[in-house]
C-alpha cells in the first residue's frame, strides 16, 4: 500500500500493568475514511490514544508519512498534522467557544472563511460563540470538539465516537460535515458504534477485537455481509435498523 498515510505494525500498548493492545496492524490510506469498529473494550480508544502519543506503544511501530512517530511526544505528533477528537470531547469548559477555537488554531487567528464553513454545519457554535463552553449541551460540546480538530487543515483526523448521545438531527449534520471533509480530500480515522453512520461515511473498515485487528477490508463489503457483521460485531439485522 503505497498510499498509506498512517501505518501501525505490531503495536502493543500497556496501561500500567495491563496489556491492552496485542499487536495492532493496519493502515489508513490517504484521502479516505477508515472506520475502526469493535465491541466495547476492544481497544479502539486505546489505539487512537497510542497514535496520538497519549499512551506510549510498548512495542511495534507507528509510521506517519514515512516517519516513525511512536516515540514522539503528543505535541509533536499534533504538529506533524494529526488532530484528535477524543471520546470525552475534552472541551475546555472554563473557556468560551471562541477561546476553544482560538487555541485549536495553532498557526494564528482562526481563518474566517473556514469558520463560516464550520458554522454552516454547526450553527449552535455561532450562536454560543461567546458563551462558556461548559454551558453547552452534550451535542454542542461534540460539535465544538470536532470544530477544534478541523479549524485548520490537518493531514489526519482521529475521531472517537462522535455520535454518542447525539440526536438524529445532529447526527445528520455531523455526517454532512464528514462528507464535506471527505470531498475536500481529508483523511479520517473514525471510531463509531453507529453502524448506519459507519456505512454512510466509511470507505474502509478495520474491526478490532481484544486488542487486535480481527478484520480489515472495504466498508461496503462488510455492510453487505450480515454474517460477517454478526461474527465480528455481534450485530443482528434488527439492531441497526
Amino acid at each position, binding site marked *: 500500500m503505497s498510499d498509506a498515510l498512517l501505518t501501525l505494525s505490531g503495536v502493543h500498548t500497556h496501561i500500567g500493568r495491563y496489556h491492552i493492545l496485542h499487536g495492532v496492524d493496519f493502515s489508513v490510506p490517504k484521502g479516505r475514511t477508515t472506520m475502526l469498529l469493535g465491541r466495547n473494550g476492544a481497544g479502539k480508544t486505546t489505539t487512537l490514544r497510542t497514535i496520538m502519543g497519549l499512551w506510549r506503544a510498548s512495542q511495534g511501530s507507528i509510521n506517519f508519512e514515512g516517519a516513525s512517530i511512536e516515540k514522539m511526544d*503528543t505535541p509533536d505528533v*499534533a504538529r506533524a498534522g494529526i488532530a484528535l477528537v477524543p471520546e470525552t470531547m*475534552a472541551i475546555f469548559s*472554563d*473557556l468560551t467557544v471562541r477561546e476553544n477555537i*482560538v*487555541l485549536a488554531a*495553532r498557526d494564528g487567528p482562526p481563518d474566517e472563511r473556514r*469558520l463560516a464553513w464550520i458554522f454552516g454545519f454547526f450553527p449552535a457554535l455561532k450562536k454560543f*460563540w461567546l458563551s462558556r463552553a461548559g454551558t453547552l449541551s452534550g451535542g454542542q460540546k461534540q460539535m465544538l470538539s470536532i470544530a477544534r480538530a478541523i479549524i485548520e487543515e490537518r493531514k489526519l483526523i482521529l475521531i472517537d465516537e462522535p455520535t454518542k448521545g447525539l440526536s438524529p438531527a445532529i447526527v445528520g449534520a455531523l455526517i454532512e460535515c464528514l462528507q464535506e471533509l471527505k470531498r475536500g480530500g481529508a483523511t479520517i480515522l473514525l471510531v463509531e458504534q453507529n453502524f448506519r453512520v459507519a456505512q454512510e461515511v466509511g470507505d474502509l473498515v478495520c474491526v478490532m477485537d481484544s486488542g487486535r485487528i480481527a478484520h480489515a477490508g472495504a466498508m461496503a463489503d462488510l455492510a453487505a455481509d450480515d454474517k460477517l457483521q454478526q461474527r465480528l460485531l455481534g450485530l443482528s439485522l434488527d439492531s441497526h435498523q
Partner: protein
Amino acid sequence: MSAAESQTLDAGAALPQQKTDYVPILLPFALALVAYPFVGSFSTWLTLTLAGLAMGMMIFAMASGLTLVFGLMDVMNFGHGAFISVGAYLAMVAIAPMAGYAHTDALGPGLLALLPAIALAMIGSAAAGYVFERVLVRPVYGQHLKQILITMGGLIVTEQVLYAAFGPQINPLPRPEALHGSIDFAGAAIEKYRLFVVIVGLVVFALLQFLLTQTKIGLLIRAGVENKEMVEALGYRIRRLFVGVFMAGSALAGLGGLLWAFNQEQAHASMGGEMMVLTFIVIIIGGLGSVGGCFIGAVLVALLNNYTAFLLPKAALVSTILLMVVVLLWRPRGLYAVTSR
C-alpha cells in the same frame, strides 16, 4: 475587527447573558458589612478593613503562583515559601544602596527606592524558581508523596543557604520614609504603606487577570489547568508552559515576601515557611487552580483575621480554619472549582 467577527460578536451579544458566578465576589463585601456593627466605630472599622485588605493582597501574591502550579501540573509545592524568604532578602540587598532615596519623605524618591528592590526580588525569585523546578520538581512529576518530601527539603535548604549567607539574626528592614506614617481620612488613620500594598496587589491581580483572559498564553494556562492532555493534543508543549508558570509564580511569591518583610520591617529566613499554612488554606478556599478564587480567598481570610483579632483576640487563629470548613461545606472544591479533580 472584520465584518464577520463583529457579526459573530453580535450573535453572542443577542444571547441571554451567561451566568457568571458572582456570589463569591460578594463575600468579602458581605463580611465587611457584617463586621461593621460589631466593631462599632467607623474609623476603627476602616482601619481594620484596610489592614485586612493589605494583608489579603500580600497573601494573594504569595499564594497565586502556588494555585496555578498545582492546577496546571498537579504539583504540590511545599517549598513555595522559599521564594517568599528569597524575595525578602533580595529586597534587603537592593534597598541598602538606595538609602539616600529611602530617607527622604517625598513620595516620588521613596517609591523610586523600592523599584530596584521589587525588580531584584522578583527576578531573583523567578531564577530561584527555575532552579527549584529543574532540580527538585521535575524528577518527581506525578509522585505526590515524593513531591511533598523533596519540596519541603528544598525549603529547608533554601532557609539554611539564607542563614549561611546573611547570618542567623533577624534583619531589620525599614520602609522608605515616604511610606511611614498615615493620612487622615474621615477620622481614621490610613496607613500609607497599607494603601501602597493594596494598590500594588490590585495592579498585580488586574495584570494576572488580563494575562489569563486576554492572551493566548493565559488561555493555554487555563485550558491546561482543566485538561493538560488536550492542550498537548492540540500541539502545545505543556512542560514549557509549566516552567514559565512556575517562574512567574515564584516571582510573585518573591514580591509577596518583599511586601510582607517591609510590612514587618524585618527579614528572616523562616518567614516563608511560616506563611505556608496560610497560603495553602487560601488556595483551598479559592479552589485549586483558580487565581480569582485565590484572590477572594486571601482577602476573606485576611479580613476575617483582622476583625476577629480585634473583637475576639483568642479566636483569631481558629477563625481561618473555621472559614475554610464553612466554605468547603458549602462548596467542597472551593469557591471556584476549576479542575476536574
